């Protein structure tokens, strides 16, 4: 099991070593000590390995991840798992703004709270937040799911496209073109599946969530909608 102490060796070496891993590597568990909030830890990975980060990470931890599982035993800065393609990123503390921004796939599980713009422009990722999320979350969200056990801040889902938002607590306000939609069995099953993926199944009842999505009124320009902005 490779261990990497960021007090001893530079970040660039860690990322290079992780990039050099092949899909069939047997070095499948990496431990990173003393992250001290450094930016860009474990970015651009493309191998089915697990990277455990023993502390707080700075901006863009797990950015553009493919295949790998990145676990942050602390909080994560701006843009954790940004543009992730596949694999998983778990944050045991809180996440700052723009968590999971533009990500195309994979799972981002945040066990604390997430700041503003969580899931901004998301393109297929599944995000699960055990706590609450900040304002303007899922802004222009295109695809994927955002499941939140706590509350959502102002302007949830502003100008969103086809992403599905499941919120268990209160929503301070909905953004332009975002509406509540009925929860049917398929949606409850989807919530259950996402909770299960994040290891949170059984903690709450999927029936307690409400679903939000696009009213699709802004998909085509129309003068009468100019007031929406």
């Amino acid at each position: 099991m490779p261990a990497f102490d960021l007090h001893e060796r530079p970040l660039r070496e860690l990322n290079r070593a992780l990039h050099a891993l092949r899909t069939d590597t047997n070095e499948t568990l990496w431990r990173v000590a003393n992250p001290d909030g450094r930016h860009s830890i474990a970015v651009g990975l493309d191998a089915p390995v697990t990277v455990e980060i023993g502390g707080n990470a700075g901006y863009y931890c797990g950015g553009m991840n493919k295949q790998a599982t990145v676990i942050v035993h602390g909080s994560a800065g701006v843009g954790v798992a940004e543009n992730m393609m596949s694999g998983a990123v778990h944050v045991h503390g809180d996440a700052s703004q723009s968590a999971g921004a533009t990500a195309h796939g994979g799972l981002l599980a945040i066990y604390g709270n997430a700041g503003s713009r969580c899931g901004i422009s998301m393109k297929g990722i599944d995000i699960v937040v055990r706590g609450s999320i900040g304002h303007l979350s899922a802004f222009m969200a295109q695809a994927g799911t955002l499941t939140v056990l706590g509350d959502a801040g102002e302007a949830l889902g502003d100008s969103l496209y086809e992403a599905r938002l499941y919120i268990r607590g209160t929503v301070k306000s909905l953004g332009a073109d975002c509406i509540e939609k009925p929860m049917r069995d398929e949606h409850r099953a989807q919530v259950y599946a996402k909770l299960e993926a994040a290891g949170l199944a059984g903690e709450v009842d999927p029936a307690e969530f409400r679903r939000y999505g696009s009213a699709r009124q802004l998909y085509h320009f129309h003068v009468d909608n100019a007031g929406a902005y």
Partner: protein
Amino acid sequence: MATPRTRPRFSATFTPDVMSEIRRAAATGIYDIRGAGAKRALPHFDDLLFLGASVSRYPLEGYRERCDTEVILGSRFASKPIRLKTPVTIAGMSFGSLSANAKEALGRGASLAGTSTTTGDGGMTDEERGHSQTLVYQYLPSRYGMNPDDLRRADAIEVVIGQGAKPGGGGMLLGQKITERVAGMRCLPPGIDQRSACRHPDWTGPDDLEIKLGELREITDWEKPIYVKVGASRPYYDTALAAKSGADVVVLDGMQGGTAATQDVFIENVGIPILAAIRPAVQALQDLGLHRKVQLVVSGGIRSGADMAKALALGADAVAIGTAALIALGDNDPAYEAEYEALGTTAGAYDDWHEGNDPAGITTQNPELMKRLDPERAGRRLANYLSVMTLEAQTIARACGKSHLHNLEPEDLVALTIEAAAMAGVPLAGTDWIPGKTGF
């Protein structure tokens, strides 16, 4: 004898163009969207002239004495900088706004000429990667189609903050052009009117930008040059901050720069002409001790080897072309006049690129129209044009006694108008007066 009458007189303020726009606005209630760049007359490279060599300086022999053209981009931090045979590159234009054939033709033409081409807002297609020897991959606010594999198969990365046609504006692609393929690449439903964001989703301001560039370098193991593209508005500060944030190359696009689709009011009224932007950008790099270390690529209305030579003389390291490249491929060709007329326009004025009906098969996703553009032949035309630009610039440089295009300098230039003299920081022709610098 009838009393003489005044000739009917048009207003210089309410011109026929202005009146037709007021009528259009009154009829529709929505602003005008179009492609291409600013159409109004602006201070430009035409307002500058070169001082050829004579008694005080001697020229170089045409075709006999060398005048080199090679340029290296990205030598500051990237372990694999880019080498171009000639300092003119093809600017980023999205697949979506352009047909797949047009993108392929741009790649073919640029490769023949030994230069690079650039993706755009919509991601990288296999056609363009396959046919582009050197391909710059744009990293835009929308992040449409962004993925680490394409990032790694690119030769350089261009972080787009703005465009000259619309500094402060996001992208726009209307439903007619959002086909299944375009929609799939962007993760959007087909047929919708699509607006891309104008700010990046996960960073704001120069301090964050520095961290973002650091991430892109880490992902690509510090191999690829990273460009930062800005629309010309506050060129001194934007260039300084891009360089401070760690860019290898700053791309500066003036207001004449083309766009696929933007509000006309935006194109014509926001940003500054490239002529006014180059000197402040160069000054910023000089003040940081980074001129020629961080390369400056400029664009916005570059049409010829003369424009290129003038931009280089003002301190740029290379130029980029969009509109001119499309014209070389066949855009607005009078051969399609009958069809342009059927669209209510005329060859040379067609700019409804967002509607996707381009008779030349360039700004369209219509498979029938697209077929009209043969990527091989169009690529050849672009390569010819790029080589003419290079020869023209060399002709001028030799006349000024320069053995490399980069040896051209502001001292080789004079201005025809006071405005151009002030903006370009070169003397008014026949005087030693640089408004704002010497005298008053």
